């Protein structure tokens, strides 16, 4: 562990520290936040002061409190979505690799079609058909994002499926599920874990973009993307408050990317 720490580049160490800080703030949001999530505490757009460190928003809610609650909501939704996307993509990809034949054909062609169009366009289409709501948002983004996980899981699993030890497992009569979980999964876990970080960044940015466009979490909930949108008018008056939630998003994704970048280097053993 200590040796790993020593070989970590400074960017990766910084990334890990920031991610830990976000996790603590998100988990213990009620302890850190001075005011409630939807509590109206003052007048609209109050300037920065001792009582309201970052001022108040369009409705007179404390900006700092909403930033802290937003960590819980925005990051939480993104994590759930990523996990769901991973579940769908990995299971479908592994099944396609293990079963082959028409299962593989149908799933692969379906993914090809979904990836033939930018994901945001399909997301907007699906959201207009299904209507707004957290559940719809999570489901739509997860399904569309699972296509990338599917491709990676299928490609890496294909390489493992042709190994002798998988053949041996088949010959001694192990079932598909046993082969997948005991032979294939442990051998493709490294690239999948790195992919989880990348997918998280992508999903997080997608959800932030959607909530910025007004299609994210429903209004009373604090949500970083929507907070930028709601307070954007302040920018034209030279106030940087609306940039804070956007910066919160950016700092987290940069940190995750730094860590993933380092993990990919380590996994591939590449020097460049």
């Amino acid at each position, binding site marked *: 562990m200590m040796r790993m720490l020593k070989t970590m580049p400074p960017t990766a160490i910084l990334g890990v520290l920031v991610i830990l800080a976000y996790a603590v703030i998100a988990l213990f949001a009620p302890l850190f936040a001075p005011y409630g999530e939807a509590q109206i505490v003052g007048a609209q757009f109050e300037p920065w002061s001792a009582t309201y460190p970052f001022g108040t928003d369009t409705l007179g809610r404390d900006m700092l409190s909403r930033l802290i609650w937003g960590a819980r909501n925005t990051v939480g939704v993104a994590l759930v979505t990523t996990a769901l996307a991973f579940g769908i993509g990995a299971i479908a990809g592994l099944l396609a690799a293990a079963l082959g034949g028409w299962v593989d054909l149908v799933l692969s062609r379906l993914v090809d*079609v979904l990836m*033939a169009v930018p994901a945001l*366009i399909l997301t*907007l289409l699906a959201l*207009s058909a*299904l209507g707004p709501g957290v559940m719809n948002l999570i489901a739509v983004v997860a399904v569309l994002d699972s296509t990338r996980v599917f491709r990676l899981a299928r490609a890496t699993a294909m390489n493992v499926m042709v190994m002798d030890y998988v053949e041996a497992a088949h010959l001694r009569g192990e079932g598909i599920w046993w082969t997948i979980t005991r032979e294939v999964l442990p051998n493709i876990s490294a690239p999948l874990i790195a992919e989880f970080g990348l997918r998280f960044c992508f999903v997080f*940015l997608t959800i932030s973009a959607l909530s910025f466009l007004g299609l994210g979490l429903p209004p009373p909930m604090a949500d970083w993307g929507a907070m930028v949108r709601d307070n954007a008018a302040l920018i034209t008056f*030279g106030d940087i408050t609306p940039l804070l939630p956007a910066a919160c998003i950016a700092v987290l994704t940069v940190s995750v990317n730094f860590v993933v970048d380092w993990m990919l280097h380590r996994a591939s053993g590449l020097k460049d």
Partner: protein
Amino acid sequence: MSAPAARRQRPILRMIVGRLGIGVFTLFVISVLIFLAVSLLPGDIAQQVLGQSATPETVAAFRRELGLDQPLIWRYLDWVGGVLSGDFGRSLANGRPVAELLAARLGNTLFLAAYAAVIAVPVAVGLGLLSALWRGSWFDRIANVATLSAISFPEFFIAYILMFWLSVRMGWLPSIADPGASPRLGEMLSRAFLPAITLVLVVTAHMMRMTRAAVVNVLGAPYVTMARLKGVSRWRVVTRHALPNALAPIVNVVALNIAWLITGVVIVEVVFVYPGLGQLMVDSVTNRDIPVVQACALIFAAVYILLNLLADVLAIATNPRLLHPR
């Protein structure tokens, strides 16, 4: 043209026709998807538009007007037939023909995207080449950290930072970008500069990283080492040995990034209140104005598929080995 030359031309021609076929087929599947996504939704469009208080008779009449009482396949053919002849139906929100709404905005969006692409592609490819050439140097390291950060930023963050500095603090540029019906190209360019430069920053980061990876891949090939060993200059190795072989991946990289450009256009247009297709689509999604959403989705999809097709053809034209896949 002599006979052997014609035969040499034929595989490329056959490939182009084949790709075109695949592209048309993909577009067909996507159009079915776009159509179904809306037709299979729970609840009824007519009921939603008219509200809960509408009598069953008005709902039935409105359904007949929208053609919802027809079978699904018939409706699809009707819709596609309309689209092919330039008729996208009518907006549910204001009853105006969708084609009329699209006409002006499509031009604005294409202008913005082309504006950004013209700046971003040479800059990104150039910088990507340099950082591949000088890999491991301080330039490469700074570029790596900078592009990784830019990729991680939400598009609207970059947009607002630029707006804050360039337009509010410095007062150089207008913060709201409406190109208007200005006849002068210069004025259009300066008005759309802020959204365009935002898109350039977003796209350049992605494109530069991918270009670097593609070129590093080629520079690792044995024939490059061979060329170096026999004493060819560094510059010549890159321009004569590496670049021709890296062209195909670079063309693909450029095409791949059109996806970022399309995603970015939607958000940037909303930030700068730019009257384009992306803003129209977002507004229509919020209002659940389905015919407009369908039309926008179809146009974005068609443009994207077409550009990818073009990239495929260009990639194969620059690297004939790809004509014979293993």
